[in-house]
């Protein structure tokens, strides 16, 4: 029973990361989601400090609580809370969290290094000690840091409590893309539940980092859509913050961040001033990461890709690899379905590709995504079938987050609701 109470209490702690620094009590704004992205970026900075986590974690919580209260009382308008949706978010968090607490099992890579990386922070070490860990160079650390950070608030110190943040992050992103699609509240609620039922799977919360990439891409695609409609700089700023998170979550995040960076520059109609700010921000985030890695002597990318290997590929190997990539990608796209539906919708709407800004953007992202998947296996010095069997389902999952908003809009259009 105590564990269930602890899950309830963790929901409250996670929620604090949504109520400050911006005032989230005005439901006409998207400040709740903005706060989450802003706070994750702040936590990233904390994760790099030469300070033991136990020394600052409670102060961050206190700060958020204080500013949350301040925001509540400083809000002048009439406070409107959609009680039924709030209850639904809470319930869906509890249901998935109970599944996580019961099933407990970690994914292969989580056992191999993600959990150990989180232990560096849980056992009061810092980024400096983590940078000396033998498997650290494979991937960045932010997901593991979040795991450890929130685990620190657990009364019993159970490992899975930290992973519940992944559940919260995912649920909030689904709420973000489903909360104002239809005029009717019930229809929005149906959409929210449908997306949760359709996309949720325990494996995503087993300590693997793909769910963080998936969720961040969900946020990015929604911010892009809002930017297309409102053309406000704040959304470009939030996109850059999301891209910054991507490059710190996982090595593949760098590829997705680059793809987003390219599609935004190539497809969006942006004022020159906004474009310059956007590019400078991205450049500064990349530079920041490079400097941090240089300072701590971490390899920027320790993945098994070698130019020599690529140049020595013979035609037979290339055909063998291409055939298997196509085979496995088709199978897992059918299993995941999102990656299978997207090209069909693009083909059905091919006439609008040059007219519709968002469709063009999705088309470009999809093309880059497929190129990325093929390149990742073509250029990797590893037995291709083994590599495909063990990783392609997760690559398909990660990228599918970007298409969710697009699919919702298209389905709404076809159903003429």
């Amino acid at each position: 029973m105590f564990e269930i109470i602890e899950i309830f209490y963790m929901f409250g702690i996670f929620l604090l990361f949504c109520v400050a620094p911006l005032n989230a009590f005005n439901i006409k704004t998207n400040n709740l989601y903005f706060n989450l992205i802003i706070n994750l970026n702040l936590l990233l900075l904390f994760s790099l400090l030469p300070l033991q986590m136990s020394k600052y974690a409670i102060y961050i919580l206190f700060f958020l609580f204080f500013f949350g209260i301040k925001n509540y009382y400083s809000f002048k308008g009439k406070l409107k809370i959609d009680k039924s949706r709030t209850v639904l978010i809470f319930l869906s968090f509890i249901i998935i969290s109970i599944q996580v607490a019961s099933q407990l099992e970690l994914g292969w890579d989580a056992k191999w290094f993600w959990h150990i990386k989180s232990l560096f922070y849980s056992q009061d070490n810092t980024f400096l000690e983590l940078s000396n860990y033998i498997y650290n160079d494979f991937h960045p650390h932010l997901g593991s840091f979040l795991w450890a950070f929130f685990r620190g608030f657990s009364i019993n110190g159970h490992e899975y409590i930290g992973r519940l943040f992944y559940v919260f992050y995912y649920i909030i992103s689904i709420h973000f893309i489903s909360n104002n699609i239809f005029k009717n509240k019930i229809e929005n609620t149906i959409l929210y539940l449908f997306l949760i039922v359709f996309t949720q799977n325990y494996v995503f919360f087993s300590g693997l980092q793909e769910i963080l990439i998936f969720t961040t891409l969900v946020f990015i695609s929604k911010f892009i859509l809002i930017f297309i409609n409102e053309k406000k700089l704040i959304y470009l700023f939030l996109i850059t913050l999301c891209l910054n998170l991507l490059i710190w979550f996982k090595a593949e995040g760098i590829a997705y961040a680059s793809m987003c960076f390219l599609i935004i520059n190539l497809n969006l109609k942006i004022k020159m001033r906004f474009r310059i700010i956007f590019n400078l921000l991205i450049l500064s985030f990349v530079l920041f990461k490079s400097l941090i890695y240089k300072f701590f002597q971490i390899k920027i990318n320790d993945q098994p890709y070698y130019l020599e290997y690529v140049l020595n590929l013979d035609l037979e190997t290339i055909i063998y690899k291409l055939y298997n990539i196509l085979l496995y990608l088709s199978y897992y796209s059918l299993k995941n379905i999102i990656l299978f539906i997207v090209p069909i919708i693009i083909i059905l709407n091919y006439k609008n590709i040059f007219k519709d800004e968002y469709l063009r953007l999705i088309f470009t992202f999809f093309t880059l995504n497929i190129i990325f998947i093929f390149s990742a296996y073509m250029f990797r010095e590893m037995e291709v079938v083994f590599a495909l069997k063990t990783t392609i389902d997760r690559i398909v999952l990660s990228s599918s987050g970007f298409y969710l908003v697009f699919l919702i809009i298209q389905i709404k259009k076809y159903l003429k609701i």
Partner: protein
Amino acid sequence: MNKKKIISLFILFTLIIIFFLKTSFFKNLANILQFNESERVKKIYGYCEGESIGYLKYLKKRYAIKNNPKILNYKHFPPVSWSIYETSEKDSNENQLIILNYPGKEIDIELNHYKDNFYELQDSYYYSTLFESIKKIKIKNFMEPNVSIELYIKNKSNELIVKKKIQVLKNNVTNDFPINQKLTDFEMSEKRFFLKFNNIKKDTKIFATLKNRYNLDDYKIIDKFKNCYFVE
């Protein structure tokens, strides 16, 4: 209440039911209420079976292990060191060993029929980390006095590359074929390892006897539970 609203509520209700069923909510809830976290860990990972996390956690508590002993698991699972890892210790402690699911000095592995006369030693890289050599081959219902064996590695282009050809005489006492091939000689990492038997009938069952790298007689046993050991 209009028809549209009734349909919407029906869909909503159905989705809630699916959500509960998909996540096995009541089963999970009962599991949490019935068993505490460490009991659930034992149920999932086993005490001295499978990943044997239960035994590792017991050892950590019982012997207040503050370093990272080398852990060998003779059941092929992901690494298990995560469950007792000490981040302040940089390297694993080679003086102490935790051996899980120890099978004895030798084990027999059935080779998997691949195609024609080709048989595969599956998970060959994993076996090469725990076992020193293929000591002998047992071929069911094979009466010939000798057998010709070719040893292959499958490269990244999916080609079978022959690494060695041997002619082996039968040991008439034990009725098997001693080959004594060191696994490290084949540089197996992530590659597949095959044996081709040139004069056998189709669908013959073949076993490889692997010689263990680790002999318990060479170590002092600190703790033991079934076939899980803590030694130094």
